[in-house]
């Protein structure tokens, strides 16, 4: 299994010496990954704020977010407080992506990171022990990584985004993207992203899904349940009135075919009257 990882690290607010030391350690991690068939995305080489100043903030957020969520695990350099690292760790934690917290030995690690309840593995390293400790951490995480790959592949098939778009178009019209985004407090681009991307990338929060369900007047199951089967009334009637349903009623409850439809009608009337 070729693993994918993301290197979350402070990139700014570092003295020249701090940056040199941190980036040397990052380069070591990158080399170790490459030598061990692990695909690694390190923002310092792609979206560094001062080295790549022309890249728009929205693009940086979007790219780094996707790279985190596509990863099997992330490596978090805990040297200095960093907004970006915090956001990336939160995104990983919300997607049940294991984290290796890479902390220089003798240095305190942020309690916000240490306090992440699970799926984290702390390594305290010196330059001499970094490679060995990092490899050890990956090997210890392997059972989790293998299992996660399996279930994320299944989950990723859940057509949450497609359902949101279809239900929005059904209930609000074809050109209702802006309108629904506005009602949700999102930009149209944000909503479009959720509708178009697989759920393991878009990862809409439970609160957002509940809000979408509320606005569209549908159930959460219709949005998020990968096994949800949408039965129209015609289809439901077809199934209930089918030969096989009548045979089943006869076999299980001793109801004659002739009586089945009569009973079904009475039951449905009873249900409707209670609504």
């Amino acid at each position, binding site marked *: 299994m070729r693993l994918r990882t993301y290197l979350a690290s402070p990139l700014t607010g570092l003295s020249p010496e701090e940056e040199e030391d941190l980036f040397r350690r990052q380069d070591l991690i990158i080399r170790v990954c490459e030598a061990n068939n692990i695909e690694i995305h390190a923002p310092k080489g792609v979206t560094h704020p001062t080295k790549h100043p022309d890249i728009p903030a929205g693009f940086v957020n979007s790219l780094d977010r996707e790279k985190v969520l596509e990863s099997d695990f992330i490596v978090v350099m805990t040297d200095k407080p960093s907004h970006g690292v915090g956001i990336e760790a939160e995104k990983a934690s919300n997607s049940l992506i294991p984290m290796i917290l890479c902390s220089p030995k003798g240095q305190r690690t942020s309690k916000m990171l240490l306090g992440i309840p699970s799926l984290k593995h702390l390594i305290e390293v010196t330059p001499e022990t970094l490679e060995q400790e990092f490899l050890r951490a990956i090997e*210890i995480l*392997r059972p989790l990584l*293998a299992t996660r790959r399996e279930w994320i592949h299944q989950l990723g098939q859940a057509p949450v985004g497609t359902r949101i778009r279809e239900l929005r178009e059904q209930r609000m019209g074809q050109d209702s993207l802006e309108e629904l985004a506005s009602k949700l407090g999102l930009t149209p681009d944000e909503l479009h992203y959720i509708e178009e991307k697989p759920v393991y990338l878009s990862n809409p929060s439970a609160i957002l899904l509940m809000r979408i369900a509320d606005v569209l007047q549908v159930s959460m199951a219709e949005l998020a349940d990968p096994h949800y089967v949408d039965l129209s009334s015609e289809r439901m009637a077809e199934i209930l009135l089918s030969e096989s349903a009548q045979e089943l009623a006869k076999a299980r409850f001793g109801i004659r075919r002739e009586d089945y439809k009569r009973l079904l009608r009475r039951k449905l009337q009873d249900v409707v009257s209670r609504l």
Partner: protein
Amino acid sequence: MLPAPFSDRVVKAFHGTTIDKAAQIVKDQLIAPSRNPYDWLGHGAYFWEESYERARQWAEKKYHSEAAVVSTEVRLGRCINLFDASWASVLGRAHEDLRARRAALGQPVPQNRGGRRELDCAIINHIAEDLYEAETIRAAYLEGEAIYPSSLFVGLAHIQLVARTPNAVVARYEVEEGS
């Protein structure tokens, strides 16, 4: 600690013991965990997974006419499932950790000798106590003679299952008929 991967699979589990202990187990609805330093899969309550026959054979060999088998069901839950090859790297690392720790303390490394698996026990306990939170541990134990020449099938092979917490047991303990 990391959470061991979760499985909601429930398996039938058999425990070989004596008639008196079986009665006590059924009365208390509890098997006291084994904590020997030579227990192959570390500390916990030991079962033969899905194999009444093997549990019976073992109990009769050890306890003769006093043998009994108790059955229940165990949910794997957070499981260190050593059938999954990805645990091999964890076992290897745990072994290195143990050797390094013992060397630093000037203590000898435990040894495996025949059925007394002291090294395996120490390694599994290290994994289950320091690295991964787990409710169960399971592994294949190959023992006995080849059933026919060149066969890989051996007569006493079984799956050993350890419940590290009573919560992993999800059915009543019952004494098996015929045991």
